[in-house]
């Protein structure tokens, strides 16, 4: 049965590959679409039709190079060039490439990022650290295959591991996963094999598998990218898990805010059913398993497994005491395995290539790779999959190109609301589950925000606490009220009203919240505060004692003014761009900022031509010289 699918996939791939027409691969995951990939695709389609150029458009997922979206790979064998990757392909560029490259064979060197394979003409993308330092297991096929075509996945070897697993006893599958040392990618890093074994050994008439795609961290999107770029790899992982633990029902719990992922998953499940990879008597065997989608409704705490189960059952998503763990008593009291999207996505490769191979990647205690979404102040933001144990320095400076605008590195926030802010001292620490926990951060979701010297750690802590405080389900007093008081204190600091705040009390309250909370939300909510207190005490000090924000971020603690020595006075851009008319011109054409109106958006500073750089930001605000606003606005010439 699987052989038939494989043969069909190979036939289709052969037809596609042997078609002499050039191929245009367009990245169409959310990030690509946000950057305009739909328009790019339309532009290609239009110019191909208008000029009668025969070329095939192949929509693929995301390669993780968000800084370069929309990304297009053009494979034009007749031109004599290798497949070429183009960044930032706007509709205009698309039209130009179609005319000049597809039609006339000129690849327009100036627009190229690199070639996809080694060759003599064009530098390969593999010469760049952003490409060659990665090790891809989970995201291996992302951006290369069409997520809406199951045969694309099968042609790339997909479902082979599952077909192989079907012929092996479940105990062996669990043994392999155990041996591989795979740890859950949902944050806490629990050994996956152990979880599966526990579920296998629990008796029950029906066992359930849940894939946790609730991805609640407000700054991480790797699960979504994976589901949008290669949904079948996740389905295959779930299938293998079902086989191993003896489950018949699967649920994919996806955030409802991910409409594209939901749509692609629905289609993938439909296709898998048609191919008899899901449903009754899969691939002609006696094994039956089906997957349904449950759309989560946007509550961060529902990422927690017991809360997630409550929400499927139709209740408020509040966590409960564990044990019993879901593997013994989960959804409707039935044995339930809950794993993260990436955990499942690791499984097919492990079954196919063996536990030894997987253990050879990463560190001893944390084998395999980690996917980070790196954003903030880095030159090449996006998704990066690297072996566990790579240092932050390599990741931020070598792979992601370092900090833009010649600024200095200040901090990196890892793990979202449960994670922590790490300072320069940690740049050389190899990152894995354990080193991050020791540092007071957490692997968490894998969201990473890099911050340069103009960032305020107090504000970042306030931001995350604001998030966790709002998302606390309210069950535990310390989490509900403790986070509130912590937040109020941080707000006072960022507003310059924190003179009475004692850093020791913040720490004590944080520790109480950790001790008094039932679930991971409350237990980890103070992490951003505790880590920033530890690694950036000077930031807190400055806010409390001097009412100064060293990162110049907390708006109540800064002011803008216009340096009249530098101001050329002739131009009015600052006045024109101010959203609240706070910038004024005096009768002798001096500029000033009315501090009572200024909302400190910084637009004037951005707008002021770089050759003047006349708008200056200061903290604390009283450092700004005062220029009186004339009572009446100066009359303009009537002429």
């Amino acid at each position, binding site marked *: 049965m699987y052989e038939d699918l494989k043969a069909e996939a190979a036939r289709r791939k052969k037809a596609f590959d042997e078609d002499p027409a050039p191929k245009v691969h367009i990245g169409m995951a959310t990030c690509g679409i946000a950057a305009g990939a739909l328009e790019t695709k339309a532009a290609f389609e239009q110019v191909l039709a208008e000029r009668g150029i025969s070329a095939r458009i192949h929509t693929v997922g995301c390669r993780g190079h968000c800084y370069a979206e929309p990304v297009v790979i053009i494979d034009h064998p007749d031109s004599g060039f290798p497949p070429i990757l183009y960044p930032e392909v706007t509709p205009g560029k698309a039209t130009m490439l179609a005319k000049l490259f597809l039609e006339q064979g000129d690849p327009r060197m100036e627009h190229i990022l690199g070639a996809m394979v080694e060759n003599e003409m064009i530098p390969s993308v593999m010469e760049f650290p952003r490409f060659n330092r990665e090790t891809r297991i989970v995201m291996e096929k992302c951006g290369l295959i069409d997520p809406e075509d199951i045969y694309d996945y099968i042609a790339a070897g997909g479902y082979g591991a599952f077909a192989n697993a079907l012929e092996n006893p479940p105990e062996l599958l669990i043994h392999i996963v155990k041996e591989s040392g795979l740890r859950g990618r949902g944050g806490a890093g629990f050994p996956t094999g152990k979880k599966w074994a526990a579920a296998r050994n629990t008796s029950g008439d029906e066992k359930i598998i849940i894939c946790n795609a609730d991805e609640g961290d407000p700054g991480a999107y790797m699960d979504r990218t994976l589901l949008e770029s290669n949904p079948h790899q996740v389905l295959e992982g779930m299938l293998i898990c079902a086989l191993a633990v003896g489950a018949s029902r699967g649920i994919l719990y996806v955030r409802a805010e991910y409409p594209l992922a939901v749509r692609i998953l629905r289609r993938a499940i439909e296709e898998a059913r048609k191919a008899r990879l899901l449903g009754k008597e899969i691939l002609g065997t006696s094994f039956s398993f089906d997957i349904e989608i*449950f759309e989560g409704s946007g509550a961060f705490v529902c990422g927690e497994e017991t809360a997630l189960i409550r929400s499927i059952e139709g209740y408020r*998503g509040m966590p409960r005491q564990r044990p019993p763990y879901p593997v013994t008593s989960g959804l409707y009291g039935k044995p339930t395995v809950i794993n993260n999207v990436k955990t499942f996505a690791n499984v097919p490769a492990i079954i196919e290539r063996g536990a030894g191979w997987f253990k050879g990647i990463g560190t001893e205690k944390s084998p395999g790779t980690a996917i980070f979404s790196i*954003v903030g102040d880095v030159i090449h*933001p996006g998704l990066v999959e690297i072996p566990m144990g790579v240092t932050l320095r390599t990741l931020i400076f070598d792979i992601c190109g370092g900090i833009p605008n010649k600024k200095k590195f200040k901090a990196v926030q890892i793990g979202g609301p449960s994670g922590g802010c790490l300072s320069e001292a940690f740049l050389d620490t190899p990152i894995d589950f354990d080193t991050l926990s020791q540092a007071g951060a957490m692997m968490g979701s894998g969201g990473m925000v890099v911050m340069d010297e103009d960032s305020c750690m107090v504000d970042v802590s306030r931001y995350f606490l604001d998030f966790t405080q709002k998302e606390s389900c309210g069950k535990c007093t310390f989490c509900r009220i403790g986070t509130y008081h912590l937040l109020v204190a941080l707000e006072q600091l960022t507003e310059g009203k924190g003179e009475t705040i004692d850093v020791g009390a913040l720490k004590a309250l944080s520790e109480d919240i950790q001790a008094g909370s039932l679930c991971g939300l409350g237990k980890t909510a103070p992490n951003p505060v505790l880590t920033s207190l530890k690694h950036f005490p000077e930031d807190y000090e400055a806010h409390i004692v001097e009412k100064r924000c060293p990162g110049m971020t907390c708006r109540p603690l800064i002011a803008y003014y216009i340096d009249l020595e530098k101001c050329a006075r002739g131009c009015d851009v600052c006045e024109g761009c101010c959203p609240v008319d706070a910038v004024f011109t005096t009768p002798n054409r001096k500029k000033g900022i009315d501090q009572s109106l200024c909302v400190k958006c910084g637009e004037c500073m951005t707008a002021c031509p770089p050759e003047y750089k006349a708008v200056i930001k200061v903290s604390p605000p009283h450092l700004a010289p005062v220029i009186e606003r004339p009572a009446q606005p100066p009359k303009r010439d009537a002429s």
Partner: protein
Amino acid sequence: MEVELSAAELEQIEKIRSELKGFKKDRGQLIPILQWIQNRLAFLPPEAIEMVAEHLDLSPSEVLGVATFYNQFRFFPPGEHPIKVCLGTACHVKGADIILENFERKLAIREGETTPDRRFSIERVACVGCCALAPVTLMGETVHGHMAPSKVEGLITRVNIEKEVKEREKKAHV
């Protein structure tokens, strides 16, 4: 704030009432049903809550209790042009709160509210998945990356102009 339902909405509610019977009377259906209704009405009016409660044999307060727990559910109609300002981490560190403030100021409503003419509403969302373009704002389904406070007015003006153009075209046809 009382919401006055339009004729179209009342009609939609009646349709929902009859189609609701197709759902199993099972507590596990509660959230899917609420999502289904919101997909059609864009929000959950009190009538909908009562209808669902009756169908699943629950009290309306129980249903409302579940609905209010989740951020997804709205109890007031969104504007014709819902504005979603991303306040995810990446957008926050690039000053998304200032963008939000600017929208609030320009439209004279707060986040979570709809303008009285029901044309615009402002919502905050967490990470729309294109952090590389931070700060990001969604107007309807369209993503606007690299937002700046000075772009806010332009976006609103553009919507208004489009509306005017449409109305003019309509008039020209008549």
